[in-house]
Structures are given as structure tokens and as C-alpha cells.
């Protein structure tokens, strides 16, 4: 599978998020990993340990950048310093594409540091498209927007989330980081069928897929990235791969982080869906 123009025609396979507790294991054991995803903001400092560790990773592994504070849907413009630092990091990592969230999180220069949901309105489509285009033009690499988990819906919404996502990516001509765990979380919180979402997403624009675990509470589900992926999410992933074809896939695990091997093993479960025929052949050979 050669990929598509939204992931620079890369076939990255299955990666995991690069996390500090795993540095020692990675540097000492040099495990075979298809690729690492980094949180851009963790490496946008001037010097010191973070960029030094990143450079060691870049010597041996492919890295893709994922951001958490571009806030494509915020009404106020992004901080030029943020964009400048992000572009410097893009040059350093040579990331083939870059992703951030379809959400908002700052207003009038004050930051909530959360991925707040957008109302699905035509006004929000226009604002978001403008921002995505600006960032994509400035960074000069493909940008993919990620659907977020949400816990609130807005009275003013004029369309479904997947209609909103489609409008944004078509008008901005950008890619999608399709998070199937977020689809599941939002579906449970907003009482819709997650398969409706997976079946509607513009498959040809999916640059990357996220899988993750979450936490279930009495009345809602939180996207906590601190558990293994549950079966219903794997089923959504299987359907997404059926529609999109083999797509670079990344397991997120951000809290109560287990050993590197445990996280990597969880991620590699995705391979049975990415390469079902290969799995069958291996099974037959045994």
C-alpha cells in the first residue's frame, strides 16, 4: 500500500507514542519499531535534554509529529512563536506529515490546554478551514486533523460530527488523523452509532489512524489513554482499514504507562487487521 498524498505516500506500519519512561529501554535495547509519534510541544524548547534525546531517536527511527495545541478551531489566531518553533521542529524531524486536533482550546491569548469540542456549524467550518490552510501553507508539509473525544454537544450544531469533519477536510484539502477510539468515546457520550461515523469518513483522506484505551464512568466515557484497546474499538479499526486500506497506525498510551514491551505488543495487535492475508499465511505455514 503506497499511502496517499496526505501522508506523503508513506507506508509506516504500526508505531507507538514516544514517551520518556521508555527512553532507557529504547536506547539500550534498540527495539525494532516501525515508527514513533512525538508530541511536538514536548520538543519545541531551545536546547537541553528533550531535543538531545530526540536527535538520538532520529538517528535510528522514523518519527511523525503530533501536536496538541494548534487549536485549528480557535477564533483567535495562533501565536507566531508557536508556528515558528513548530516549523523548526519539522525541519529537525523531517516528519512526512503533521497532525493536530479538530478542536479549539485558546481564546484571546489564554490557553485551557484542553481539546475542547467545536459546535458543528458553518461558521466553525469556515474558521477552521482558514486556520488549517494557513498552517499547512506555512509548514509546507501535509497536515492531518484529528477527530477528538468529546463530552459535550452544542445546541447550535447544524450537522453531525462526521459531516463537519468532511466539510473541513474537503475545503481545506487536508488529511485526517482518524482516531477510532475517539469515535467510540464520542459515540457512547453522544448516543450515536460509531459505525455511521466510520462509514462516512472520507477514506481517501485518512493519513493516519490512532488507537487507544479509555476509562468508563457511570454516565460517560473519558479518553484517558491508560488502558489497552477494547474489542469494540478494534472492530471499528478493522472497518476503518477495510475502507481506507492499510494506513499508518499509532497506539497512544499516556498515563499509567506500562513497560515498552507491553505497549509495543498492544500496538502490534493492529497488524492482524493491517495485513490479514499475511497473518493467514503465517497461520497456514504453522
Amino acid at each position: 500500500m503506497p499511502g496517499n498524498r496526505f501522508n506523503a505516500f508513506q507506508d509506516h506500519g504500526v508505531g507507538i507514542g514516544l514517551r520518556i519512561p521508555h527512553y532507557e529501554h529504547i536506547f539500550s535495547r534498540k527495539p525494532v519499531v516501525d515508527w514513533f509519534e512525538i508530541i511536538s510541544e514536548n520538543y519545541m524548547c531551545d536546547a537541553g535534554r528533550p531535543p538531545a534525546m530526540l536527535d538520538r531517536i532520529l538517528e535510528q527511527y522514523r518519527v511523525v509529529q503530533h501536536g496538541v495545541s494548534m487549536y485549528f478551531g480557535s477564533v483567535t489566531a495562533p501565536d507566531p512563536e508557536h508556528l515558528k518553533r513548530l516549523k523548526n521542529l519539522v525541519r529537525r524531524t523531517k516528519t512526512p506529515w503533521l497532525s493536530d486536533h479538530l478542536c479549539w482550546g485558546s481564546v484571546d491569548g489564554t490557553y485551557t490546554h484542553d481539546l475542547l469540542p467545536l459546535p458543528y456549524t458553518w461558521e466553525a467550518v469556515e474558521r477552521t478551514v482558514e486556520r488549517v490552510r494557513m498552517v499547512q501553507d506555512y509548514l509546507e508539509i501535509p497536515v492531518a486533523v484529528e477527530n477528538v473525544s468529546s463530552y459535550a454537544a452544542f445546541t447550535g450544531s447544524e450537522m453531525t460530527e462526521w459531516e463537519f469533519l468532511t466539510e473541513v477536510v474537503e475545503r481545506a484539502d487536508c488529511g485526517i488523523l482518524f482516531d477510532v477510539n475517539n469515535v467510540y468515546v464520542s459515540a457512547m457520550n453522544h448516543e450515536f452509532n460509531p459505525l455511521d461515523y466510520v462509514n462516512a469518513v472520507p477514506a481517501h483522506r485518512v493519513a493516519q489512524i490512532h488507537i487507544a484505551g479509555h476509562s468508563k464512568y457511570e454516565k460517560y466515557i473519558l479518553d484517558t489513554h491508560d488502558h489497552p484497546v477494547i474489542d469494540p474499538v478494534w472492530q471499528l479499526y478493522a472497518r476503518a482499514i477495510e475502507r481506507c486500506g492499510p494506513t499508518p497506525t499509532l497506539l497512544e498510551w499516556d498515563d499509567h504507562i506500562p513497560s515498552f514491551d507491553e505497549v509495543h505488543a498492544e500496538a502490534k495487535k493492529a497488524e492482524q487487521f493491517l495485513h490479514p492475508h499475511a497473518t493467514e499465511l503465517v497461520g497456514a505455514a504453522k
Partner: protein
Amino acid sequence: MSAHPNVQANAPTNQSPMDLAALQREMAAAVMQPLTPDENMRATMPDGRSTTAVAASFIAPNSRLTAFERLEIYNRQYWYRVLGALAEDFPALRAVIGGRRFEALSIAYLAEHPSRSFTLRNLGSKLPAWLAAHPEQAGRRHRLAVDVAKMEWAFVEAFDAAELAPLTQRQIAALQGESRLALQPYLQLVALHYPADDLVLELHAQEKRQTSEAGVAHEDDSGATTGVPKLQPRPIWLAVHRVDLSVYYRRIGREEFQTLDALRSGSPFGEALEAGFLGSRIPERVRAERVQEWFGSWAELGWICQA
């Protein structure tokens, strides 16, 4: 695009929809409002309006949660995130004043200084100065608390601030009285009222042990400040710096501190030395030798750079 049965919204109301900017300002104000002591969303907004009414004006309920409860999830998430970030950057301050007081202090600080940066790394940048101006937030250990906060913020800066090319020995030898120098951006100069450096190092080591043993930091949420020895006030001058990616605290003399401080402020080399020895008891005859020692050490550590 036509209306869809799965649109995640309420039935249309008579009110005209809030524009995006107004919605974001309204939601941010609600989300960033401090929680009640029971960690619930407050019943009234800062301007006195009912939070229930505000939430219902733009958030739709579902079959399990009201608009208020849905907004409350974000309100809690915001505070857990920012309080967690401050606790991570100021573990020794937390140990010195106790968990409960630290949380109250953090809430008061963030109410005045919410994040103005795209990165949480900068969240505590104003905390030392803010704490110095708010003695009521730290109790009887206020001056020690300010010292500790200054040291911990200096650690954050020294950890990842920029590193410039240091002056070579030849460039140092050619310095004139009117030469202007710059200091490494990662080098932080901190004047303390207490010898708090050893205390902070010990508290950081304790924090590291607890984190690696339990997997979770900050298990003690009590107000107790156990394990913090009583310190006698004594002025200390510190250079917080970085060597091979690790941060170190180095005690220096008052004269060396004042000289470095003057260089950082842009004073020419000669004036910086005068400022350094202002009020000094170091005899004139040994001062040249002392300056030579400083420069030897600064050159070795790469602290001085071209302005």
C-alpha cells in the same frame, strides 16, 4: 447539508445561535472557573449568572447528563491538568508548605495568571514573583517558600533554555573594560534568604524515589509538611546551570553573583566588576586574583558568550 437525525444538539430554540467567538469566551470562562471544595462546578459564574442557565444556553443535554454536568467534565479536566502541571514543576514547594496549602496557592495563582502560552512548560513562570507578593498564601514559611519557588523555576529554565557558543580562551584573554558580554541563556542567577539548595535537592530526590517506587507522585495530599528541617536564614547566591544535559546548583560568592548579574543586565565588563565588588569586604589586593578565578571557572563551564 440538510439536518441529520444524529446531529448532536438540542431541538432548535427561539434564541439565535451564539457566534463562535462568543461561545468560546463563554465556555472558557466556565471551564477555567475554580471548582468548589468538593470538586464540582460552581453554581454561579464570576459575573453572578447561574452556571446552569449559562451551560444550557449553548450545551445540549443527553439522556444521562444535563448541560451543567457535561460542562462540569471540562471544568474538572481543566483544573486537574493545570494543577497537575504546577505540582510537577514545584514538588519541593509543595513539600515545604503542604499539599492543601499548595493547592490553594495554585488555584489563586492560576486565577490571576492563567496560561498565556501554547505550552504548559511556561505555566509557572510568574509563580515565584507572585508568591513573593502574596505572603498570605505560604503561611509562616513564606520567605523559604519563595526561595524554593525561585529555585524550582530556575531549574525549569536551566533544563531546556538555549545554549550559545561560549567564548574561547583567546576571546576571554582579549576582553577590555568596555567589552560587553552575554551569559548563557540557560544560566540562572538566584539570590536566596535561606540555604534552600540542599533542601530542594533532597526533596527532589525524595520525589523521584516516590515516583519510581509507587508509579504515582503526590500520594500525600494532607496539609502536613513532614520531613522539612528548620533552616536558619542565611543569604545564599546560586548559579543554576546545565552540564551534559543535567541541571546543577552551584553556590557562588556575592561578588561573583553581582558581577554576573551586571553582565546579564548589559553592563560593560569593567562596570560589571565594579558592581560586583560594591560593598565587598574582599581586600583590594586579592580582587584581581579572585576575578581571574571566576573567569577560569566561567570559561570551563562555558557561561560567557558574545553579546
